[in-house]
């Protein structure tokens, strides 16, 4: 049963990576990234049981947290002004530096 | 406390670096850092004395025996390097306070000293450790702080130079890491002496050969050996003057040390020079390096650039001495390590003084400085003569031994080429002298004053050392001879 779940999760991770690479928008990528992170958490927990070393759960826990933080981080930074206007902004910054 | 000398050498500057942040007053921090580096200097003199009288010192960190714990192992070579680094570090630091006041913003001063001490720590760590992975860790300390120090330069090109250095340096460090991994895989240990003893069984495997190649290439990246030197000139030219003076005198020396340590102690002479055509390769690279870099130096207009390229050329001399692979050749290399540190730090410090007064290191700005800053320019001339290798200076001593070594094994062409290379040095030194002494001062510029004494004292200390060790060669030659003989396994 555990093995089956592992395989299923691996397949889902693969699908998520495909979506992540294909895009097409930034948000799709973030979404796939988030999903990937969740699946990693599950994968690690299951692996811990498979190998009989439940210490791995600590890592899964860290993953859950880090995943959240990095998704928030991506969102916050993609909200920022430069991100949206990075192309328009380059001209003025160049001028005022010289 | 005497038994703990090896570790104190590293640990004192390491602890002083965070302490700097507590003091937070520029002058106070400077005094503190100076005190610390003076301590390391004294410490290294003691160490050298101890090593010369009673042989190799080992020190087990954490009380664990060697292959399990980390071991410090100081022999003549390490002690010599420690002495060079700590002396140069102290003398250069003496001028730092004056210099960085012009070149750095006020709130960066504390950080500067902290980074400087960390950089010294890293170099001490590399030199004194007997554990291969420890070398990597301390290599990273010294190079990370070097990147940051270079990035502090005023010019924006300093940033770019630091970035290039970072990329090249990290590639080099990663190569070294791969090499360490391969070695570890074949021997199961990280201790240098232990690796050396266990390597004999697996000598013939391709893995060890690959490890050797990776380590050598990694070290050569750090060493700025001729084709891998691209990061060096800009890094030296745009860093703050103090940093240049310190790094130019020490950073490449540490890499040379690593090269020697790797090929002689760990892999053994037979392996190092028989598995690869290392001798010919290094001879050619060294000689080409001397000529290419000296020629490039002739055409540069920034004096810092000139001396940076000359550094690459000097690395070429060291490599030639190393590649001759006789005790005399190695001795010449070690002597040149010592001597080059003396003359390069003097030159770059004097340049720092010039930059302090006129705010530029462009050759065209040097007009008339010979009369306006007589002491500084005289120092540049003397150190420059030493760079060329004129008798009665240190440069002559090391080149003499290099020639002797080359002639001993019948490599006449090498000897001739080394002499020719020195002639190129004459040209670029002459350009500076000509502009500084024989051209009128720049019109429209206020008369430049002589450099302040905080500059002149260390500069002239170094210049006098240049002359002293050029006349009285007993000390340096004795130590270098002992070191090279012990590396070749000859008991004096």
């Amino acid at each position, binding site marked *: 049963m555990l093995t089956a779940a592992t395989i299923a999760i691996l397949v889902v991770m693969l699908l998520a990576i495909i979506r992540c690479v294909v895009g097409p928008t930034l948000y799709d990528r973030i979404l796939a990234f988030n999903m990937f992170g969740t699946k990693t958490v599950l994968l690690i927990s299951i692996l811990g049981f498979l*190998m009989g*070393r439940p*210490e791995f759960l600590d890592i899964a826990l860290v993953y859950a947290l880090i995943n959240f933080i990095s998704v928030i981080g991506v969102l916050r930074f993609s909200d920022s002004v430069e991100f949206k206007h990075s192309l328009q902004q*380059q001209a003025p*910054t*160049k001028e005022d*530096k*010289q | 406390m005497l038994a703990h000398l090896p570790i104190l050498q590293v640990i004192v500057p390491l602890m002083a670096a965070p302490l700097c942040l507590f003091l937070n007053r520029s002058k106070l921090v400077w005094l503190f850092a100076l005190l610390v580096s003076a301590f390391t200097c004294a410490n290294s003199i003691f160490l050298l004395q101890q090593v010369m009288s009673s042989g190799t010192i080992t020190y087990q960190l954490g009380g664990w025996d060697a292959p399990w714990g980390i071991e410090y192992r100081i022999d003549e070579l390490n002690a010599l390097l420690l002495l060079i680094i700590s002396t140069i570090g102290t003398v250069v630091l003496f001028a730092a306070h004056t210099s960085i006041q012009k070149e750095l913003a006020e709130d960066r001063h504390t950080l500067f000293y902290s980074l400087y001490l960390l950089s010294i720590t890293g170099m001490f760590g590399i030199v004194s450790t007997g554990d291969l*992975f420890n070398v*990597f*860790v301390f290599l*990273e300390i010294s190079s*990370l702080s070097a*990147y*940051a120090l270079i*990035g502090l330069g005023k010019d*924006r*090109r300093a*940033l*770019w130079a*630091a*970035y290039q250095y*970072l*990329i090249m340096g*990290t*590639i080099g*460090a*990663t190569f070294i*890491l*791969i090499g360490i*991994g391969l070695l*570890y*895989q074949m021997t199961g240990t*990280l201790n240098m002496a232990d690796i050396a003893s266990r390597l004999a069984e697996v000598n013939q495997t391709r893995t060890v050969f690959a490890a050797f190649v990776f380590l050598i290439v990694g070290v050569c990246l750090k060493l700025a050996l001729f084709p891998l030197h691209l990061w060096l000139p800009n890094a030296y030219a745009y860093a703050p003057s103090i940093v240049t003076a310190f790094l130019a005198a020490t950073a490449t020396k540490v890499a040379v040390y690593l090269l020697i340590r790797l090929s002689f102690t760990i892999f053994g002479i037979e392996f190092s020079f028989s598995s690869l055509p290392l001798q010919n390769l290094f001879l050619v690279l060294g000689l080409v390096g001397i000529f290419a870099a000296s020629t490039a130096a002739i055409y540069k*207009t*920034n004096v810092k650039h000139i001396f940076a390229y000359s550094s690459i050329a000097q690395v070429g001399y060291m490599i030639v001495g190393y590649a001759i692979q006789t005790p005399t050749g190695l001795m010449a290399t070690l002597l040149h390590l010592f001597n080059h540190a003396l003359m390069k730090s003097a030159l770059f410090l004097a340049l720092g003084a010039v930059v302090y007064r006129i705010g530029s290191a*462009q050759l065209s700005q040097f007009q008339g400085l010979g009369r306006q800053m007589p002491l500084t320019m005289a120092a540049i001339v003397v150190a420059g003569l030493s760079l060329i290798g004129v008798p009665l200076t240190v440069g002559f001593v090391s080149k003499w031994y290099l020639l002797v070594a080359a002639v001993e094994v019948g490599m006449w062409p090498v000897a001739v080429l080394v002499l020719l290379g020195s002639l190129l040095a004459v040209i670029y030194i002459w350009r500076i002298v000509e502009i500084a002494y024989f051209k009128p001062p720049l019109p429209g510029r206020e008369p430049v004053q002589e450099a302040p004494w905080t500059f002149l004292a260390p500069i002239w200390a170094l210049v006098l050392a240049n002359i002293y060790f050029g006349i009285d060669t007993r000390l340096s030659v004795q130590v270098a001879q002992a070191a090279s003989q012990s590396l070749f396994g000859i008991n004096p």
Partner: protein
Amino acid sequence: MLLGLYNYWIVVLLMMIGFYIVIAHGNLIKKLVGLTIFQTSVFIFYISMGNVDSGSAPILAEGVARYSNPLPHVLILTAIVVGIATTALGLALVVRIKESYGSIEEDEIQIQDQLTEDKTSC
């Protein structure tokens, strides 16, 4: 017969990818990303070196006979820290470069440098 070494070949592949990015890309941040990949490949190399068939994680527990080799893990912990330190410093440099040059492309920076050099030497 050579299948016993497959792990190292994956590492080599990763390493080559990372190294290629470092050398060939002009974008400074991409270079750093490549550097990270390069370093990580070395980490994997070390870790796979320390692995033992049917070994377990090196935390002492009852009923476990074989453990993986802990030493590579220790080394790599240190190396990871060194890696993140390098990355942080490199990114800081890139940010400063962007501020003062207005670009993070290698060739544009070189062109600008060339210009300033010409100006000063004239």
